[in-house]
């Protein structure tokens, strides 16, 4: 068992990559690329489930588990250092879960150059896993960049109307902020001689580094992450990306990578600097919640509506993160999971509608409920989860974030953010109404009814069941998240102390690394 624990994270990285190679080698016949991608995705998902099954809650358990540290390059000192803690564990599982969903969503949608598509799709999986488990900043940066590449290529090649333009926008928005990030990482290395997360954390906290420079370094980290989330006003790429990206990628492009990176590498690495900018982020997050919701209200295209809805929901998570409260953090990580599950289901369904009716103009739709009862039912449940109906998953995260903000940050911001609750219901229910209710539209009448098929149901049923289970029994997830959000020595219940754990000293870690 110990050996599996040692190698599980490496396996999770390698399996999708091996799948990608296999897809590249087989001929594009009999839907072979699809099947290989599906099996790879399911296999990887199975592997990720090993993590929660063997995560240790023991009092003396290390913060990072399933950890491997191997010296990779001596000069510059780069370790292959991976591990997960309570913050990242379920995010790894989420990426694993969404992979088969993505394959099913692409099954019929992607007809041309399937080999390329699925190979890149699987590479993207590896990159996302890598981001969540890397504890060496150089390795992390490699995966971060790698996660952007297949995305940009796939948007350019498989865009619906104007892929290259959207891809260029995505490229400019996400690659340019990565440059300062790289510079900041290299600066840290130049000062400390290490890329290791815990070592750097120690150095940053030690006060040995020039404070003025650290502020800018931290800001460079934050900037790269904030664009990727996105945080208002850096969301310019989202609407076009959502409109053009294949569904399988649209459902993972926003949110989790950036949000996790904020938790781990911005606040986790630069607690003092993060605390200094937190008020700004809180303000931007609340603006983002309301701004995204208002814009979602007036969209005529459902991809763009989903993009602004995502801005609104991701801003709420950002609020939970920069509120720097334990309640808010638990809610934020949980809400990242919820957002992934719910958006996965909704994007899958919207993708099916788009494939069938070839338009994303909301007003062209209407009256589909009578023809597509199952699609309607799943979409309505997903929407309700999204708008935070109690007993479905969105409510738990939303409530925790708002409560953490209300009690730990400011009542005013919390009240403003809670207004998003009203607007969220408005645009989602209006969307449901315009797509599914009302008299049958010409568009709906133009095609014979074709409700969900077996493969789609096989994905939607588990996702929907998950929404319910995550809403009724969040304690299956929250204790793990709490171990990540709450450093062991924490005493006060709400405010994160953001001090350095005693164990992380550079000597012990370097010693550990070279063993």
């Amino acid at each position: 068992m110990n050996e599996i624990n040692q190698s599980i994270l490496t396996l999770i990285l390698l399996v999708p990559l091996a799948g990608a190679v296999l897809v590249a080698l087989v001929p594009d016949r009999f839907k072979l690329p699809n099947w290989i991608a599906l099996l790879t995705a399911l296999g990887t998902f199975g592997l990720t489930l090993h993590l929660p099954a063997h995560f240790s809650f023991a009092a003396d358990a290390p913060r990072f588990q399933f950890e491997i540290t191997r010296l990779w390059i001596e000069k510059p000192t780069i370790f292959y250092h991976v591990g997960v803690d309570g913050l990242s564990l379920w995010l790894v599982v989420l990426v694993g879960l969404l992979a088969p969903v993505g394959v099913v969503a692409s099954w019929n949608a992607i007809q041309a150059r399937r080999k390329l598509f699925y190979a890149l799709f699987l590479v993207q999986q590896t990159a996302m896993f890598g981001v969540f488990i890397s504890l060496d900043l150089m390795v992390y940066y490699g995966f971060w960049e790698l996660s952007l590449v297949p995305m940009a290529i796939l948007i350019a090649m498989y865009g619906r109307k104007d892929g290259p333009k959207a891809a260029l926008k995505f490229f400019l928005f996400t690659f340019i902020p990565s440059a300062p990030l790289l510079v900041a990482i290299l600066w840290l290395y130049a000062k400390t001689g290490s890329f290791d997360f815990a070592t750097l954390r120690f150095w940053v906290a030690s006060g040995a580094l020039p404070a003025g420079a650290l502020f800018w370094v931290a800001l460079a980290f934050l900037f790269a992450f904030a664009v990727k989330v996105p945080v208002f006003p850096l969301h310019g790429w989202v609407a076009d990306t959502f409109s053009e990206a294949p569904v399988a990628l649209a459902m993972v492009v926003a949110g989790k990578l950036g949000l996790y990176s904020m938790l781990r590498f911005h606040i986790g690495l630069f607690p003092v600097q993060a605390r200094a900018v937190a008020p700004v982020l809180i303000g931007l997050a609340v603006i983002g919640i309301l701004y995204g919701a208002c814009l979602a209200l007036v969209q005529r295209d459902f991809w763009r509506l989903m993009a602004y809805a995502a801005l609104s929901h991701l801003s709420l998570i950002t609020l939970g993160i920069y509120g720097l409260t334990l309640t808010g953090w638990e809610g934020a990580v949980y809400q990242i999971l919820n957002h992934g599950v719910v958006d996965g289901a909704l994007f899958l369904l919207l993708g099916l509608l788009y494939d069938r009716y070839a338009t994303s103009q909301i007003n062209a739709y209407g009256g589909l409920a009578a023809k597509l009862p199952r699609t309607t039912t799943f979409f309505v449940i997903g929407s309700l989860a999204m708008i935070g109906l109690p007993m479905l998953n969105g409510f738990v995260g939303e409530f925790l974030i708002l409560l953490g903000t209300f009690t730990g940050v400011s009542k005013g911001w919390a009240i403003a953010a809670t207004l998003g609750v009203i607007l969220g219901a408005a645009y989602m229910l209006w969307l449901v109404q315009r797509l599914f209710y009302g008299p049958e539209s010409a568009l709906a009448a133009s095609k014979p009814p074709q409700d969900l098929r077996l493969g789609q149901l096989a994905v939607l049923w588990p996702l929907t069941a998950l929404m319910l289970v995550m809403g009724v029994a969040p304690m299956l997830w929250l204790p793990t998240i709490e171990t990540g959000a709450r450093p062991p020595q924490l005493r006060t219940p709400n405010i994160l102390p953001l001090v350095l754990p005693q164990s992380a000293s550079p000597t012990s870690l370097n010693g550990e690394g070279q063993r």
Partner: protein
Amino acid sequence: MNAHLHLWLIPLLPFAGFLLNGILGGRLPKWLVTAVALLTPLAAFCMVLQISLGLFANPIAIAHLPFVETCSLPWINAGLLHVNFSFVLDQLSLVMLLVVTGVGFLIHVYSVGYMGDDKGYARYFSYLNLFLFFMTVLVLAGNALVMFIGWEGVGLASYLLIGFWFQKKSAADAGKKAFIVNRIGDFGFLIGMFLLIANFGTLTFTDIAAKLGQDPGWNGGVVTVIALCLMLGATGKSAQLPLYIWLPDAMEGPTPVSALIHAATMVTAGVYMVARTHVLFDHSPFALSVVAIIGAATAIFAATIALVQNDIKRVLAYSTISQLGYMFLGCGVAAYSAAIFHLMTHAFFKALLFMAAGSVIHAIGGEQDLRKMGGLRKKLPVTFWTMTAAVLAIAGFFPFAGFFSKDAILYAAFLQGTNGKILWFVGLLTALLTSFYMFRLWYLTFMGESRSPEVHPHESPWSMRGPLVILALLSVCGGWIGMERFGNFLAPSVGVLPTEAGNMRLEIILSIVAVLVALEGWLIADKLYRRKPARPAQYAAALPTGYKLLANKYYVDELYGAVVVKPLLGFSKFVLEWVVDFVILGGAAWLLGGIATFTGAILQRWQSGNLRSYAAWLAAGAAAVLLFLLVPWATVLASLSAIHLGMAGH
């Protein structure tokens, strides 16, 4: 007290019905759908009945209430929030449960006849069962967050059932409107819960009461804010000013739904919530007076609109809003048990009014316009007599159920000093209007000659007539238990009714005044709609402004549209989307992108500027990085050095 009441079964029984009919309904034979749909609420009702009989038979057991049942596993335990699934059975929840499951079951039976021919029969019943699930959760909730499950859940069921005939745009619109307006109230509920956690550290009702009781310093201030936030929630769910606007539109749903959800049970949830959290209101005189004023204002406001509506269901809808106003008036003068008493009797007679109206609509082929009815007394005798009982009850005639409960509220208001007298007077005036518009409806529907002679009405089937008769009996006798006994029973839950000892005479005088006022309302209606049927049109013509104002419901919907909805959409579209998103942010991004591309092109001529080649370079780099990752360098180095060492050793 028996420690194993298994309260959780009460909500879960209808939930099982929901799952069965919701998932398999389309494939099951109709009799099986009906059986599942009826038996699950019946079983829940029988459970409640058994529990109550067990309690009434055993005074010691009643003294041991409240009985709390908590799930051993926590629901949410994170940071500051510690919430369990906990159910509480006390006098208050028992009364509510009896009403909800009892009236709920009757309306299920009625629906078998009413919805018999509908294509969505199974879907309808699954929603109806879902509603009962959430409503019983709401009633049984031991803490505010579990109550919020039920609170939002009944809103969902209401949304689904109002929009049940979703092909009709008006129905889908009405469902959406109900949900969104309720969300405004829920916003208040949420803030109230945050404040409770921030100040009391708990959402459990009993703990809050205990903490309030311990420290006399809790008075006004933050307690007032919490109470007002909760009241905002209540105004949404219970359709009070200023959030009542969704309820009249909710009449788009099937009529049994209007009877169950939008008259008898769900809309009373706000009253129930105020009674459940009454300790908070008791510690804030200001919040109480706000409740009383909102209640009284809503009561008379809605009653004036009901005077001139021509759709039979809309009259009843405004009457519901008005009667709910009475209940809040009762709460606002701290007469919670009187409010709950009225809640109960109202559930009987208002459910009956709606179901009888449904029977009328059913009989004449879906017509809801009062102007096209008339003369139905002979054709629909059961409907006529049962509805008459309900009209007498709502108008407050002795000895019908509404008399006792309405009287108790008015009496309690009268005792509250000068302001109380004003509230009492408003309530009395509302009683006059109520009596008038109810008899107007009664005359227009049943009396005189038929105004649509081409229609041949037929009495409804027994599945519909049966519930009517039972509810008619309850509308007659439901109040005979008397306010005093009812109040004493509820006192452990909601506190003692404020009374003036030994002032029987005042109470009797006030009762007589109230009945006389109701009689006056009847006489006016009799004059205008029987003896001189041309008069109403003359009055309307004489006062065109007033009439139009009432007929158009004071233009409140239009006002909200012009003040809230349109500006919000316009602001979002023009200011946020065009100016901010497109021009400012888009322009800035374009500019930065242009600069970056330009500098890039100059500095690095070898770059093609082609996205694919950028991407290819990055991919190649990333692949190289990965290749390095794949090789376990440390292991290789270690084994190399081991070989080296081994060789050295030899």
